[in-house]
């Protein structure tokens, strides 16, 4: 049984890693670098919130 669980752990690790890498690639090719790195320290996201709350 534990041999099967070992194989399962390898497979799940690969699945999670591939999903992250795929999403990373898709995000980086969909959005501009300017948008992705637009975060500034301490700022609340301008798209959803205003300065005054």
């Amino acid at each position: 049984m534990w041999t099967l669980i070992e194989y399962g752990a390898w497979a799940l690790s690969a699945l999670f890693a591939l999903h992250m890498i795929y999403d990373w690639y898709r995000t980086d090719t969909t959005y501009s670098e300017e948008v992705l790195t637009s975060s500034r320290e301490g700022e609340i996201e301008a798209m959803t919130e205003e300065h005054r709350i």
Partner: protein
Amino acid sequence: MADFDITSKSMDGIASHGTKVGLARVLGPAHVWALGVGIVLVGEYMGWNFAVGKGGAYAALIACWFAGILYSCVAMIDSEVTSTVAAAGGQYTQAKHIVGPLMAFNVGLYLVFAYTMLEAGNAITLGYLISVAADMTGATQALDQRPFIILSIVFLAWLNYRGVLATLTFNLVITAFAFCAILVLFVASAPWSADSPLAHAELMSGQAALPYGWLGVLAAMHFGLWFYLGIEGTTQAAEEVRSPARSLPFGTLAGIMTLLIAATLTWYICVGFLPWEYLGDGVNGAVAPLFSAAQMTGSNALVIILGFGTLFATLASANGCINDASRAWFSMGRDHYLPQWFGAVHPTYRTPYRSIIFLVPIALIFALGAPLDQVITFSILSGLLGYTFMPINIILFRRKWPLDTIKRGYVHPFHPIPALVLLALCSLTYFAVFLGYGTQLIAMVSFYIVVSLWFHFWRYRFVKRADQFTMPWPKPRGY
């Protein structure tokens, strides 16, 4: 008093300068508690008992309480400063605003290394725990721990990648379970009853009381840190909590109170069940002392509860470490202290996704290729350097921005006593660490000196100096 008021209900005090995608403000005080306690609680389940090996049971208790004072000072100082510097990066961001860029760079690295090494140590431990479970369930051949080490790191990184709310809600559930497991074991051992299986009088008398004298107490200080190491990680959530001025002090101070209770109960239970020679040997003896104590009760239910408690505490710690290391790395990238590429935020999940992914292979290399004691020692030493920065930080903060210039979300009492106590205890702990790990201490300080030179003579030219100070504070007093 400046216009900036972090406790104001009508304005956040932070101007917008073009952020299109930022970290999501979705967390509450319970998540802050789960982040801080989650990182630390594994230290109750394993590791602290090396202090018993260094000086016996009483030495471990003295170390536990002295380290408790050290970390209470850390929590109070952190709560005040971070309730005002409400940005990701925690102590790195505090250092940048209050001390200067070189200190900030060093503090940022302390944080990243402390948390990434601790994450690697947790993954190694998790692989070991799974192999113990395999042995207990009758596995006929030795288990390959590598797939479980890799799965723990990759799964938790994936969870962190997908969003901070789910990540820390997961941490809240498993951390609460692990803490309750300690309470259940304490109640089940019925210390108030005459029939209690606890045998403190027999196990702690004579030679067992203080086997190495007061030098043993000093040596135990190194491992006393295990009871609380990582509570300062709550500050990394500063940019993702809905109400930083309230949530951060509340979560952090509730966290240190939880840990003081958990640490004392853990010590009390374990030294009452296990002889100090066995308890103090964390390699060939009590690897997971609370689990060993549960086995001593003879109750299968307690063995299962504490077994899951150990597993969950390890997972929660690794999970919180990924969260904190990635925020510190992200903040340094955003300020150009590192390539700005790391300062990206995922537009859907609102997480620092590149920093999370970048630190995965580093954690894997250490988890698969380095011995556990070296990995953990590097983590502790990096943490200790960070604690030494804090008293300097709070003294400068109060001097440059006295209480009547910036309104804080929390003001810690008795200043500067906590700062001075923290500095004294850090000095004591350096000496204790030097006794056992002098070579590693010197090697690590040398490493930080080399990277500081690199930052000063090369990297700092890329930093946009005016952009890095974002807090709308008045000019510091005396400038």
